[in-house]
């Protein structure tokens, strides 16, 4: 690895960034995700924390431009130079410029350049790294298409960036706050078998069960025995700050995430185009600012949304709220006399989570069967 002469670096751990404009080659959400994921790569191996700004002057200003674009290094049309970035300092220092004459893509096929890979390289410069002559290093000067899904930073790049900033703080590798920077994200994961464990949201996903709390997710999978614990940003970098509710429509291979008054549809790792959308699109009145929990009944194709002590029923076939709702939860679900933090359908039952307890309910007659600890799924 190498650094710039005199090894300029940011003299703080909280670094801000702002996306000034977008390439027409990609969806905005995909550009934001690529950039957030690129920052997360560097924050996961250093004490650095990155916060996205939406106006004003940020440390790292990110933009797309072609040819001459106001600095001394004009771009050269398709191919050749793809992008450049400036080492840490005030003004243009830290800024990253991407050549709009290239074809930018979120894929790693050969008809375009993967924005995440190029952005991760350029942000290395924005943090003070020069080029590396280690073939395969991220800071190698020449673009190399590679699989980006579980991309891990090569050791040479880790050595370089830690020579400038040291390793992450003890507590945890802080996920990139790519969304809602003013909202605190859980900084340290709770213990799997803590009897007081509570969850923000729960959903199935392709046969697995995902339990969300703050910026973390527990994965219970039929494909491996133990419970996996990850940061949400390692699956969906631009949704790092967590969710209020989530549910899967398995026939469509689609999971819907809710945060405040917005919702996202994802299929596997990918956020579907055009999201986030306002929850009012689903038929909620403007008086509803967020939802507590959601669960989809795969048999009836109805989705139940829980808000306070009431719930709605949404018809996935007609994509509309059913008439006669909202109704009182306690009126229809015997024994559920409180709000619902998270909800799950599994093995023909509903599981309603409230604090550190979960309530198993028979779906057909909506009768309470038994009460268990919320983390009973973790084989404690």
């Amino acid at each position, binding site marked *: 690895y190498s650094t710039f002469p005199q090894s300029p670096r940011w003299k703080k751990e909280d670094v801000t960034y702002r996306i000034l404009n977008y390439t027409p080659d990609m969806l905005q959400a995909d550009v934001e995700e690529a950039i957030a994921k690129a920052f997360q790569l560097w924050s996961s191996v250093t004490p650095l924390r990155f916060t996205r700004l939406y106006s004003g002057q940020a440390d790292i200003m990110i933009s797309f431009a072609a040819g001459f674009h106001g600095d001394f290094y004009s771009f050269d049309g398709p191919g050749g*130079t793809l992008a450049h970035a400036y080492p840490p300092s005030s003004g243009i220092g830290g800024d990253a410029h991407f050549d709009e004459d290239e074809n930018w893509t979120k894929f790693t096929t050969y008809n375009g350049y993967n924005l995440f890979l190029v952005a991760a390289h350029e942000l290395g410069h924005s943090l003070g790294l020069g080029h590396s002559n280690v073939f395969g290093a991220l800071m190698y000067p020449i673009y190399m298409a590679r699989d980006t899904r579980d991309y891990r930073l090569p050791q040479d790049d880790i050595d370089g960036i830690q020579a400038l900033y040291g390793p992450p703080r003890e507590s945890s590798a802080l996920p990139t706050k790519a969304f809602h920077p003013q909202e605190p994200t859980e900084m340290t994961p709770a213990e799997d078998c803590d009897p007081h464990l509570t969850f923000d949201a729960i959903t199935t996903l392709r046969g697995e069960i995902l339990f969300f709390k703050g910026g973390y997710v527990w994965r219970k999978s039929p494909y491996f025995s133990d419970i996996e614990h990850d940061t949400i940003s390692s699956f969906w970098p631009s949704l790092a700050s967590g969710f209020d509710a989530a549910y899967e429509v398995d026939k469509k291979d689609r999971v819907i995430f809710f945060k405040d008054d917005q919702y996202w549809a994802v299929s596997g790792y990918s956020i579907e185009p055009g999201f986030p959308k306002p929850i009012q699109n689903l038929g909620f009145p403007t008086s509803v600012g967020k939802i507590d929990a959601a669960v989809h009944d795969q048999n009836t194709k109805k989705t139940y949304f829980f808000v306070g002590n009431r719930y709605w029923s949404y018809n996935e076939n007609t994509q509309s709220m059913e008439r006669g709702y909202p109704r009182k939860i306690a009126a229809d679900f015997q024994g559920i006399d409180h709000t619902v933090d998270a909800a799950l359908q599994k093995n023909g039952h509903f599981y309603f989570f409230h604090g550190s307890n979960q309530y198993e309910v028979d779906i057909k007659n909506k009768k309470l069967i038994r009460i268990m600890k919320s983390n009973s799924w973790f084989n404690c």
Partner: protein
Amino acid sequence: FPVVPEKEKEDMQFAKKYLENFYDFKEEKNSLFKAKNLNRMADKIREMQSFFGLEVTGELNHKTLDMMKQPRCGIPDVRS
């Protein structure tokens, strides 16, 4: 095959620009220093070949030119 002189000239131009951009090559504008320029350019080609692990010959051979044409980052590999 014999390289068409025009093509050779083009390649030399391209390589000079590349070395100026990324290897801090500065050409003496005064044509009296032609020989000196060629030596200096050969030195910079050697520096670039060494960085990319190519055989260090100082000559603008096919492999070196091919590496120069790869899509890349606009930041120099070496700086004064």
